[in-house]
């Protein structure tokens, strides 16, 4: 009784002793941290604004138009959604494409992006703001890039601290690799999918740190949004098992990992199976087996931990031996079953696209369509620098910083960074997945660098002024990191402080734990670098100031580079082209839309249009005509049929097109103005893909003496095929009038081989202003008098092409 009363008095007096000085101290600290949070909020608002406005260059330079090819399909599906509603989208069978097969859109599209734009449009129209669907589609990606910057802030803040979060958000708002796929007008899956990716990672890390099932629920919901948005969700479903296994085998396993991982996997599998495009692949394809394996291993490890927790030591050892032998036997049985199942399929259970990531040579050997897409090629070294700039330097620093101190969250970031670097090296398109990783790692490094410099500049902790504000803001989160490291690394240190509490202030206890942590850090092997010594060593004040200035200069260069890249490189809508005339004005090439508009207004509604698959989506969206093949490329044989037709002489091509009910053939030709991405340059891929299915198309037939050319030394089959004929029909005279040289092709830089091209089975119906798109009609009967037709057309041409010397079309490239 007496002792407990004495204890109570002692503890009360202790509280009074320590209360007064620390109240004033703590209110000042509270005020400073509140001010710091306000500044942080304004900074984040500015970062979101930066992210949005950096992506608006194409709208300013050209107009608010949808870019490229794939976004046109997404736009068309969104139009359908706004007209017909959510339920009808699931059952939509599109008969305007892949004639005569059609396409089950409901089952083959990733609906996340469409839902997002549809919901935004519905909300706007509910409030009677009549914004057209196209505008909503154009501006969805910049909006979600602002959200992505916010989410990157939260992710890096969860891994390290608020300062790292702010830097990561700034990097993520402006990193060029993300800008390239999310400019205004680029209405593609990646625009929202990268936001969903970072959101899933943030919520996963939050769940690991807090261990709460509420965060795990939010994580599962965001994963549903991710699966709905992009095929790249398989990256998540394989990265999280790698992290889980790494935690188990590095001895970092605890119950919070179980709460984060296990519910997510099961809920995620059912959610993935609910999306029709994934369907039963969620349990049957090898991409997901890694997650199930890690699920099993996690349960085994948790079981062992529970038994260890419950049993005394001796019995535990016997139980462990028994469990291990039973477990190995069970795993052997499961392994035999899985290997048997997987060997039955020719791709070991992986889908073609995933296999081409694991084995980079797979696509070029077996699936030439995947190999032909330019964004599936490995990136050149300089594209790393263009796409992430100084993060090339900062991200490896951040990687090292994640090791000290290593938490579950920083281990996750390490694994994310390393796997993303590998996959970005396989396919340039996956630089996009690398971007958030480098932003977070770079943010951590930048925060540490600035931390070191600012500590050297300012006076000690606890002083006033703006420097103190910054330091409090950066140090404000450090006690959490410190206590984390205390609980993980230096348990004896905390017990020593608790054993002698009387008369000591809280502050000195913190100092003690800092010293203990510092002593702990000394013993670690990373001390040799002493790069992140932190509290111990301070640089001289001048070095700190100059270093901070240099660092800010580097950041200025980074933002400058990002603005330049966004304005010059990634803002081209590629459906409208621009070039500078010698007088300094801008010349616009709007040929694509001109051709699609002509098709829309001058052809029968049910007419079928054949072209190479690149232009399929644009044709259905803008010309509103049925096409034979489009960018979905799901049917290789159908594409090979069109390729074979383009590579055949006139009569065979006419037969093939008549069998397919084709009325119009569309080719893209750049030789008149110098547009290099035309069909003649893509022609070899048509031959390869066609030859992959039809053995009578052989690539060597189309190569001449000097390889692939279209001059007089070209291959015989090349000069006979309709691609050549349709591209160069009546071209020789037009080139004479435009450039002064008879039959000079501006892209290939040679004169064409055969200048008097005649067509018997096709009739030219439209050629755009700069000859970039040419439309031919498939005749019912071959024409009898070929010469008369050609001269009649040539006379008509004289009126349209401008005489040389005055208004020559400037070359684009």
């Amino acid at each position, binding site marked *: 009784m007496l002792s407990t009363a004495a204890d109570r008095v002692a503890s009360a007096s202790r509280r009074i002793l320590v209360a007064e000085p620390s109240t004033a101290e703590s209110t000042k600290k509270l005020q400073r941290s509140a001010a710091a949070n306000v500044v942080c909020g304004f900074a984040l608002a500015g970062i979101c604004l930066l992210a949005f406005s950096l992506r608006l260059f194409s709208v300013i330079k050209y107009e608010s138009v949808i870019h490229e090819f794939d976004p046109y399909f997404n736009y068309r599906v969104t139009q359908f959604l706004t007209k017909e509603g959510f339920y009808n989208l699931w059952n939509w069978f599109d008969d305007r494409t892949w004639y005569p097969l059609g396409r089950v859109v409901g089952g083959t599209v990733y609906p996340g992006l469409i839902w997002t734009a549809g919901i935004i449009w519905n909300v706007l129209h509910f409030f009677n703001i009549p914004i057209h669907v196209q505008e909503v589609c154009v501006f969805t990606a910049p909006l979600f890039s602002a959200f992505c910057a916010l989410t990157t802030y939260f992710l890096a803040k969860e891994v390290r601290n608020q300062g790292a979060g702010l830097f990561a958000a700034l990097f993520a708002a402006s990193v060029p690799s993300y800008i390239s796929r999310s400019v205004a007008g680029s209405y593609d899956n990646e625009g929202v999918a990268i936001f969903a990716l970072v959101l899933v990672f943030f919520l996963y890390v939050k769940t690991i740190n807090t261990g*709460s*099932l509420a965060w795990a629920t939010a994580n599962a919901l965001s994963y549903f949004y991710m699966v709905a948005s992009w095929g790249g969700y398989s990256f998540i479903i394989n990265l999280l098992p790698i992290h889980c296994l790494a935690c188990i085998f590095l001895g970092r396993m605890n119950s*919070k990992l179980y*709460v984060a991982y296990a519910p997510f996997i099961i809920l995620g599998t*059912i959610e993935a199976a609910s999306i029709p495009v994934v369907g039963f692949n969620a349990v049957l394809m090898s991409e997901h087996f890694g997650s199930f394996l890690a699920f099993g291993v996690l349960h085994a490890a948790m079981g062992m931990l529970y038994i260890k927790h419950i049993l005394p030591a001796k*019995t535990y050892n016997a139980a462990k031996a028994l469990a291990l032998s039973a477990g190995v036997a069970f795993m052997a049985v499961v392994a035999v079953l899985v290997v048997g199942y997987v060997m039955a399929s020719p791709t070991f259970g992986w889908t073609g696209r995933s296999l081409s990531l694991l084995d980079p040579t797979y696509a070029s050997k077996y699936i030439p369509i995947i190999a032909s897409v330019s964004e599936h090629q490995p990136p050149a070294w300089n594209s790393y620098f263009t796409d992430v700039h100084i993060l090339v330097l900062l991200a490896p620093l951040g990687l090292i910083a994640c090791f000290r101190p290593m938490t579950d969250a920083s281990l996750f970031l390490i694994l994310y960074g390393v796997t993303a670097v590998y996959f970005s090296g396989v396919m340039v398109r996956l630089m996009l997945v690398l971007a958030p990783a480098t932003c977070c790692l770079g943010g951590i490094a930048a925060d540490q660098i600035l931390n070191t410099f600012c500590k050297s500049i300012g006076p000690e902790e606890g002083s006033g002024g703006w420097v103190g504000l910054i330091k409090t803001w950066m140090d404000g989160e450090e006690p959490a990191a410190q206590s984390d490291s205390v609980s993980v690394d230096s348990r004896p240190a905390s017990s020593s402080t608790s054993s002698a509490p009387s008369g000591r202030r809280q502050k000195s206890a913190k100092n003690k734990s800092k010293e203990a942590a510092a002593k702990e850090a000394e013993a670690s092997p990373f001390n040799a670098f002493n790069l992140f010594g932190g509290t111990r060593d301070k640089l001289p004040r001048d070095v700190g100031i100059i270093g901070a200035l240099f660092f800010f200069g580097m950041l200025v260069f980074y933002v400058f580079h990002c603005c330049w890249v966004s304005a010059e490189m990634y803002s081209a809508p590629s459906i409208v082209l621009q070039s500078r005339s010698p007088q300094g004005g801008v010349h616009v090439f709007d040929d694509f839309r001109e051709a699609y508009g002509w098709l829309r207004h001058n052809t029968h509604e049910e007419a079928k249009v054949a072209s190479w698959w690149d232009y399929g989506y644009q044709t259905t969206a803008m010309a509103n005509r049925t096409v034979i093949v489009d960018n979905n490329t799901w049917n290789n044989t159908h594409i090979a049929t069109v390729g074979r037709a383009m590579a055949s002489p006139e009569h065979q091509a006419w037969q093939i097109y008549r069998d397919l009910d084709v009325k119009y053939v569309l080719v893209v030709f750049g030789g008149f103005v110098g547009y290099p991405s035309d069909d003649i340059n893509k022609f070899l891929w048509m031959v390869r893909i066609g030859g992959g299915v039809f053995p009578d198309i052989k690539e060597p037939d189309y190569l001449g003496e000097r390889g692939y050319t279209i001059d007089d030394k070209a291959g015989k089959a090349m000069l006979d095929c309709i691609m050549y004929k349709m591209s160069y029909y009546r071209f020789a005279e037009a080139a004479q009038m435009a450039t002064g040289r008879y039959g000079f092709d501006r892209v290939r830089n040679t004169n064409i081989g055969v200048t008097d091209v005649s067509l018997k089975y096709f009739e030219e119906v439209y050629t755009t202003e700069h000859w970039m798109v040419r439309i031919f009609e498939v005749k019912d009967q071959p024409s009898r008098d070929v010469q008369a037709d050609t001269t009649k057309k040539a006379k008509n041409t004289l009126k349209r092409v401008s005489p040389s010397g005055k208004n020559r079309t400037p070359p684009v490239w």
Partner: protein
Amino acid sequence: MDALNDILRSFRGEYNKTPVKIQVLDCFLVYAVFTGLVQVAHLLLVGSFPFNSFLAGFLSCVAFCVLTVCLRMQIDPSNADFKGMSPERAFADYVLCNGLLHLVIWNFMG
């Protein structure tokens, strides 16, 4: 064999010391596992059509087990990882997660 008996005996002895709340949760676990096994037996005997219904039912049993294990860990007083979490908060999270789980299952069952 003797070793196995020893292990089981000492395990049973230690298990009886766990609180009654946790033992009730363990009964739920056994029930859910049993339901899942019944569904697998049905799959093996009768066939896999319709597969989505089987997946929905089986995965709902597995997920329910997982969530109950999470709840069990969170309210177990001897577990040091969840020191700051009150049992009421743990139960509320559990109900929320189960709500999402059953919503997704109901949608997928067909």
